[in-house]
């Protein structure tokens, strides 16, 4: 497996963990059967990071998920913090990018 693939896998695992353990807007983290509850959204967060999306763009996506797609009333402050946390992964060295073969 290439370094890129390993890094991408680690970045996705970290995003999954943040969505489930830190964001968890529905409150399902403690249910063993719901550990994949937000997995669907990992790819889009990863794509946003790949495109160097800012906090606002990340927040817009998370807020749409929380209030429109999940139908929750929403916790704006918490979601703003998570958007900052996710957007900050780039500065922490978690820098997903375009797969080399795809850009060649």
């Amino acid at each position: 497996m290439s370094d890129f693939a390993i890094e991408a896998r680690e970045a996705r695992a970290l995003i999954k963990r943040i969505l489930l353990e830190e964001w968890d807007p529905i409150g399902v983290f403690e249910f063993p059967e719901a550990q994949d509850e937000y997995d669907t959204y990992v790819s889009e967060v990863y794509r946003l990071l790949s495109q160097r999306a800012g906090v606002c763009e990340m927040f817009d996506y998370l807020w749409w998920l929380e209030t429109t797609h999940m139908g929750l009333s929403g916790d704006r402050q918490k979601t703003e913090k998570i958007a900052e946390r996710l957007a900050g992964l780039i500065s922490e060295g978690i820098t997903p990018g375009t797969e080399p073969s795809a850009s060649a």
Partner: protein
Amino acid sequence: MGDVRPGIRGFVGIGFDIAIQAILVAILGPESVASAEVRAGGEATGFLGHTGFELKNLQAVRNAPEVVGGRSFSGHALDQMQNRGIMPSAVENAIQTGTPFAGKTPGTVGYFDPVNKIRVILNSETGNVVTVIRGGP
């Protein structure tokens, strides 16, 4: 069947799809099958998971919010019901006859159906179904 709404289309005529899906997953692996569906841009609503064969939660958003049988379901809830093979009637039964429990997030309430062993999480303000999960509280 002409009046079937898009959000519940996945609950109709699923036996053949499940058999095909099971064969493809056995041969190619679940990630290959899911990514192939996405690449093909195909309708993802023809598959339905079930206990012991829950669909991998890898596809992008599939369903929009919808009212089924007078009950409002979020798009997320419909996606997860398809992944986990849970019918709208089982969800309604859990809400009507199940044991309520406090949601872990403010503004939510849960119902546990000990017969079907499912948990339903509702938005307590709107009554909207937020998600459905197998297992007990």
